[in-house]
């Protein structure tokens, strides 16, 4: 600050106000929140990088610095294969998800397929459910030996062996492909719906046919959306733990995530090697997300004009029933069959790949839900309790953080805003299991290890950008003058936030909160790294049951989780309307 002498004009301003003018509610909040976000996001990643260079000696007690962990990545007997398996699964899953996503979006947005309004919510259901539960369901449906379909094949068709078998990499590809198809769907359907039909019409008037128009006009316009969706599916699959853990790992196909898991908590635990593997996984995903954000997302053509277009759908003629059957088929294999199968399994004391009507019982639900039942399973009942606490607290804290961060990004200009914007994208580039490894190595020697707090930290770090995006999109639509006029009316920054900004942002805050609540209620790949006895979550409970108990108990808790998630989605859609819940 300058040391010029005060002129008599400025004497009215007390010297303290020089400092007070810097220490405003707004600047204090900015600094505090920036520090929190930076600490939450940067610290685990930094410690993860540093830890990956620490080499555990054979005794397992001391560490030295070196590159041995990275050397192990390609000299190890299993890890290189796990790497290749991960790439195979990602590629396959991306193909399937893109095929279903684009085809379903086109059918629903641009054709006269019957019942397309009704089917839309069901197409999105897999997005809200746990892929891990999906894998368990498909294992019971079409696993080798135990699969219901295979046993029917043997019983009714007199077949030998299996009709289909999902207990392998193809099964992983199939289940992840089905579950992540809604991601592509959501990326594509918006631009398909909002596309100005006159763009297509003008192509038709030049003499181009239906197919040619689709290939030269429609597809290029939607291509950035498709590519974005495909990359997101690839990255999400690379970080997916539950599906390969259930379907391929037990049969000899490891992936990077199952390997990281075994290094984090297994018998041959070596968190430093786990950190190096997380780095390898993280580098791939960050690179892809960077390409998507930097080069592909900005190319999404703005075809929105704000004008209501006349509904322009393509008449498929008789083919509309084929499209209808196709969409119904997707809902059947992605939603109805798995859930139905799980429910049937859950009613049996023991699953023998056959429906035995006189055995049916609800006892599995008693053991997994009722913590007062004498033979209850603590991992399951704890899991339900903990998950609700984590989902509620996590969503609330993350939304408060999102609100302040969005405010900083959009209402204050300058370096701090851009830094925060960047920090909010970083966690999206890393799979949950990588963030979780970072959190683990950072806090393993602190008191928060083995408490719910470390899970909360992991959840918020990884997922608060989702909430932030919801708030930001609403904030962008609200004129800054609404805030400014409150300041001019004499309200402080905080009062303005409380009385004007937050009430106006309610829809965005609510949508973000429910989205995070749902994500946290089904979260597995962070929880599996950070939980310990007593801090199991719902998905960890499912993991525990499938690993140490039997299929029917697993199915009961899986059905419970699925019902809870569907209830959340239903309640939310009732309150917030149809369009609100999107990524």
């Amino acid at each position: 600050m300058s040391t010029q002498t005060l002129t008599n004009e400025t004497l009215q301003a007390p010297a303290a106000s020089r400092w007070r003018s810097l220490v405003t509610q707004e600047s204090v909040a900015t600094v505090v929140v920036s520090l929190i976000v930076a600490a939450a996001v940067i610290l685990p990643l930094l410690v993860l990088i540093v830890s990956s260079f620490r080499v555990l000696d054979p005794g397992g007690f001391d560490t030295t610095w070196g590159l041995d962990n990275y050397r192990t990545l390609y000299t190890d007997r299993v890890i290189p294969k796990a790497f290749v398996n991960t790439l195979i699964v990602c590629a396959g899953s991306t193909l399937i998800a893109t095929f279903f996503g684009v085809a379903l979006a086109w059918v629903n947005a641009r054709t006269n397929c019957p019942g397309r309004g009704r089917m839309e919510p069901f197409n999105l259901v897999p997005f809200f459910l746990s892929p891990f539960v999906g894998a368990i369901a498909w294992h019971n449906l079409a696993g080798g030996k135990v699969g219901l379909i295979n046993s029917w094949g043997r019983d009714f068709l007199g077949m030998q062996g299996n009709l289909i078998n999902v207990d392998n990499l193809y099964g992983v590809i199939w289940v992840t492909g089905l579950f992540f198809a809604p991601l592509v769907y959501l990326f594509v359907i918006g631009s398909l719906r909002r596309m100005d039909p006159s763009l297509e019409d003008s192509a038709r008037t030049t003499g181009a046919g239906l197919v040619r128009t689709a290939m030269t006009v429609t597809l290029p316009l939607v291509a950035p959306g498709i590519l974005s969706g495909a990359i997101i599916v690839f990255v999400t699959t690379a970080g997916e733990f539950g599906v390969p853990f259930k379907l391929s790992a037990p049969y000899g196909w490891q992936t990077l995530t199952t390997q990281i898991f075994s290094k984090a908590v297994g018998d041959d635990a070596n968190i430093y090697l786990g950190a190096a593997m997380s780095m390898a996984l993280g580098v791939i995903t960050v690179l892809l997300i960077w390409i998507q954000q930097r080069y592909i997302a900005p190319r999404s053509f703005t075809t929105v004009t704000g004008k209501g277009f006349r509904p322009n759908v393509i008449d498929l003629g008789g083919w509309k029933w084929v499209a209808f059957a196709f969409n119904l088929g997707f809902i059947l294999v992605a939603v109805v069959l798995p859930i139905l199968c799980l429910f049937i399994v859950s009613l049996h004391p023991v699953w023998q790949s056959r429906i035995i009507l006189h055995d049916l019982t609800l006892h599995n639900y008693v053991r997994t839900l009722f913590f007062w039942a004498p033979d209850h399973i603590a991992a399951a009942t704890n899991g339900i309790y903990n998950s609700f606490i984590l989902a509620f607290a996590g969503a609330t804290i993350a939304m408060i953080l999102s609100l302040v961060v969005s405010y900083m990004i959009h209402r204050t200009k300058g370096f701090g805003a851009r830094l925060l914007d960047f920090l909010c994208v970083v966690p999206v580039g890393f799979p949950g299991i990588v963030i979780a490894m970072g959190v683990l190595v950072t806090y393993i020697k602190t008191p928060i290890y083995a408490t719910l707090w470390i899970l909360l930290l992991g959840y918020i770090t990884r997922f608060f950008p989702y909430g932030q995006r919801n708030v930001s999109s609403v904030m962008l639509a609200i004129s800054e003058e609404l805030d400014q006029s409150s300041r001019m009316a004499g309200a402080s920054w905080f009062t303005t936030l409380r009385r004007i900004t937050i009430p106006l942002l309610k829809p965005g805050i609510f949508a973000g909160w429910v989205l995070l609540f749902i994500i946290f209620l089904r979260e597995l790949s962070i929880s599996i790294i950070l939980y310990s006895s007593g801090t199991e979550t719902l998905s960890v409970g499912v993991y525990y049951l499938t690993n140490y108990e039997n299929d029917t108990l697993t199915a009961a808790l899986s059905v419970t989780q699925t019902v809870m998630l569907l209830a959340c989605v239903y309640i939310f859609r009732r309150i917030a309307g149809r369009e609100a819940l999107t990524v």
Partner: protein
Amino acid sequence: MTATNAAAYVEVQGLVKWFGADRAVDDVSFNVSKGNFVTLLGPSGCGKTTTLMSIAGLHSIDAGQIRVGGMIYTAPKNGIFMPPEKRDIGMVFQSYAIWPHMTVAQNVAYPLEIRGMPQPEIDSRVADVLRLVGLAEMAAKLATQLSGGQQQRAALARAIVSRPRLLLFDEPLSNLDLKLREQMRVELKRIQNEVGITSIYVTHDQAEALVMSDEIIVMSKGRIQQRGTPHEIYARPVNAYVSNFIGVANLLKGRIVAVNGGGRGKIEIAQNGKQLQFPCLIAAGIRAGDEAVLSVRPENVQARRDNGDGRCLEGEVLQAIFLGNCVDCRVRWGDFEWKVLTHPRGRLSKGDKVYLHLDPEHTLAVQP
């Protein structure tokens, strides 16, 4: 505030604001007397809104000082920046900024609630103000149910309800349609007169500025071009920019050949290979030998059928557009085209030969 200082209630001194490498406001200084209505007028990007936002405290400034009623609001040199909510300023925004989640009455009551006024007093004041702006029946309506003009009135009610030290208007009428805009100009001015709050108004619409202001400050490229009463600005612009921005003017480049007493003199124009001299009024700061611009408003050019005193400019009517109360003519004089407003009785039509007469009392020499 002291009584002796009443002549300068709002004092803006040496205001400078950079946006990146861009000098949005470049050393702007002006005063506003208590109770006056002053308009900052200029095209978009001239720095008028930036100046207004600086006074409001909605952004910081890089140099200069802003004082209202003797109290320093902003003085970066001394590290003083009063937050906007402490400034006691009412502001009407371009987008009206009526909060959509509140009723009209709640919107208007907000500044009073913030000031901790007891509820009965709030109610009576809100009722008074809503009556003043003509929205008494709309009190319980949600802001989103109002029309554009009604939102404008609600925004004005909210800005004046706490009887602030100063009222700021940021192009408040630019989102209204023409009819409503003309009606609201008069209405706004009436209400401002009634409450008597010192006001600074920003607009790019010169007609608006002329109708409403006690004083106009014309800005361009971050600098003040001229300030004065609407009549002064219109009748005696100081430079070519102002005379062209306010209304329409015929502008001809020339040179001052003589300056007599009383702000009169002669300007020489080189036209059609001839040197012509015109007696004219000379703007302040122009000396003999200076480059200058001859400025004549279309309504001050007389088009005659005869040459009269023989000193008229002979031209040919290129175009005559009948506008009802007058005829808008274009007259070719060599390679210059005069804009002339004539009375319909003149019955000029295309191709007519006319003689243009310039009245020395309405012929100005201004800075280029």
